[in-house]
């Protein structure tokens, strides 16, 4: 009898080139998504050392942080962003690394196009110089973010030395209620375990509620694993995974697909596999979530209230909550649904896929943004934008008063910003101080909640909205 293994352990073991004396493993890396935000420096360092890229086509480079979401086809303004966009393009070409031009139809946020193109597949180890690489674990891969030094190592060697993290199972029982999404699920998990709850661990999401999620929902779930402190989160591949990937431009075809699928079917965790930690959450009891503070763990159900910092037992948490409420300009005890917003941002690698936009558009029903509220949509990729337009979603958003923009990281990481003091309902992943502009106050929510808040001028219990529809 071989020891029962987790999915993570099976994939990891298939990639171990050698065990190093220091207790880490030298891992074969299958895929590397390369973006202009963190990776241009890596090419420069390799050139300075005279080292070639080890396996050029395992890499795929695309500018996703800095392309403008407005006036995409205008000449780029001189500055840092343009230097990085062209710097990545030129360095990729010199190194023989496939590159997607920022004006091409395949352009998009790397964690959106990785699955969309079938570039990332189950059973792979995929890395990228961006912490939200955890997103790609939704396809049954090990995927994690790395820094510039490590991605330089990946470019030069096609490998990475790493120590196997501890394992953590997040068991999600029950079914999500209508109007409750993968975003609410992951926010509730982070609220439960905290932003350092998964530190040092690789998470596997399991259980009925996970199986019921479509792949795009699983991508959202795994995306914010990093906000729970874990570098990677994984959902074992199943029929939905195969159906999603079949026919994608870079996925295998024919006999090779059959071979691949047969292998993928061996990858789910064995029934008796042991995890170092297991967390149980009843997904059926989760309400739509809204963050109130400046850390993703500062989250409450929309029908709840802003907690009193004094209610936290831990003095450090009390201090942090007090600081967060001062920054956010909010009072303890206030009803979440009384928080008024100034702006809506729908976009980012967390919530910008077609189903997110469909989910958000369906709530509009001919209404318009509340007086004084602005908003824009930045689809996750140019393909998502085109598909949404084919369905007429752009018209629905525009008629409601939203601006329909191009695909990039945008307000998620402060490339597009709001004026000081603006309160934003954002579908992105980080509500840190000043992340979306100086003194900007961010509330993290799902796409339907963001749009509903824009229409009402404040957060609303979208379960009621949907029941009334």
């Amino acid at each position, binding site marked *: 009898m071989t020891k029962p293994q987790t999915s993570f352990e099976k994939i990891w073991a298939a990639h171990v080139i050698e065990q190093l004396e220091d207790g880490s493993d030298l891992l074969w890396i299958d895929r590397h998504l390369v973006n202009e935000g963190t990776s241009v420096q890596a090419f420069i360092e390799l050139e300075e050392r005279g080292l070639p890229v080890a396996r050029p086509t395992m890499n795929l480079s695309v500018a996703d942080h800095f392309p403008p979401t407005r006036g995409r086809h205008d000449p780029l303004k001189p500055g840092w962003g343009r230097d990085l966009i062209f710097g990545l393009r030129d360095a990729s070409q010199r190194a023989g690394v496939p590159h997607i031009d920022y004006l091409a139809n395949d352009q998009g946020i790397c964690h959106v196009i990785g699955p969309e193109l079938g570039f990332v597949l189950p059973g792979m180890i995929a890395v990228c110089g961006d912490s939200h690489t955890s997103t790609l674990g939704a396809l049954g891969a090990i995927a994690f973010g790395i820094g510039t030094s490590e991605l330089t190592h990946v470019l030069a*060697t096609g490998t990475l030395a790493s120590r196997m993290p501890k394992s953590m199972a997040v068991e999600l029982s029950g079914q999500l209620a209508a109007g409750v999404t993968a975003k609410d699920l992951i926010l509730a998990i982070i609220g439960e375990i905290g932003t350092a709850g998964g530190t040092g661990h690789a998470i596997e999401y399991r259980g009925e509620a996970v199986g019921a999620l479509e792949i795009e929902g699983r991508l959202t779930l795994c995306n914010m694993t990093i906000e729970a402190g874990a570098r990677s989160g994984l959902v074992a591949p199943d029929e939905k995974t195969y159906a999603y990937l079949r026919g994608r*431009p870079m996925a295998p075809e024919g006999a090779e697909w059959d071979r691949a699928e047969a292998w993928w079917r061996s990858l789910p965790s064995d029934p008796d596999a042991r995890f170092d930690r297991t967390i149980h959450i009843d997904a059926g009891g989760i309400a739509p979530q809204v963050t109130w503070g400046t850390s993703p763990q500062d989250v409450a159900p929309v029908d709840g209230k802003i907690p009193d910092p004094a209610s936290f037992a831990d003095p450090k948490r009390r201090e942090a909550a007090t600081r967060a409420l001062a920054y956010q300009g909010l009072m303890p005890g206030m009803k979440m649904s009384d928080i008024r917003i100034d702006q809506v941002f729908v976009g980012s690698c967390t919530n910008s896929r077609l189903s997110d936009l469909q989910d958000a558009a369906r709530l509009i029903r001919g209404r318009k943004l509340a007086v004084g509220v602005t908003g824009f949509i930045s689809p996750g990729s140019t393909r998502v934008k085109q598909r949404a337009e084919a369905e007429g979603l752009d018209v629905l958003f525009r008629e409601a008063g939203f601006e329909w923009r191009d695909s990039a990281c945008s307000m998620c990481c402060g490339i597009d910003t709001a004026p000081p003091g603006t309160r934003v309902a954002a579908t992105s992943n980080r509500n840190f101080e000043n992340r979306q502009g100086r003194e900007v106050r961010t509330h993290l929510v799902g796409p339907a909640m963001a749009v509903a808040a824009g229409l009402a001028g404040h957060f609303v219990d979208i379960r009621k909205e949907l029941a009334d529809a």
Partner: protein
Amino acid sequence: MPEPLRRLTGIAAALPIENVDTDMIYPGSTGKSLKRGDQARVALHRLRFSPEGEERPDFVLNKMPWREAKILVAGDNFGCGSSREMAVWALHEWGLRSIIAPRFGDIFYNNCCLNGLLPVRLERPIVDRLMALAQDPATATMTVDLQRCVVEAGGETYSFDIEQRAREGLLEGLDAIGMTLASADRIAQFGAAYRAALPWNAEPTRPLPQA
């Protein structure tokens, strides 16, 4: 390649904030260059400077003796958030060589080890004690000894754990890429077997379509 780091004695500064994220350490909008060597000004920019660009005189790293700090004693989950390695470069270029905290963001922790900035994980009660010592100029001088894996402060000695690979890398200032390339034959051998078993994993068997 970072300079080796073995034993370090210097002023420690206290930053008693939880969940300091890499946006706080290195605001994306403030950076103007991606090159190592250009980043010191950006380190903890919004804590050090007002929106008008003036130094905040009450911030610890703007005051003596902590302006000379080599060690930072920080709150839990330091360096969470974005993977941006510039956050580590900025702190290192500003002059820090070690950060002590109960826990670190995983990616930030790795980035530290690869850039000569020693991350020390200690139990929270000990970090609280070190933070109190760091706040008094009379007791703010500490020693972090990576050879013995101890912190010496206030007449006490505290042991810490660090992965062997990270420790060796910091002690010797090793070139990780050079070390791996020394195993090129082993990698090629593995790659041949891997390509035979899982060809679609090794490289995309269908190239990126031309747009």
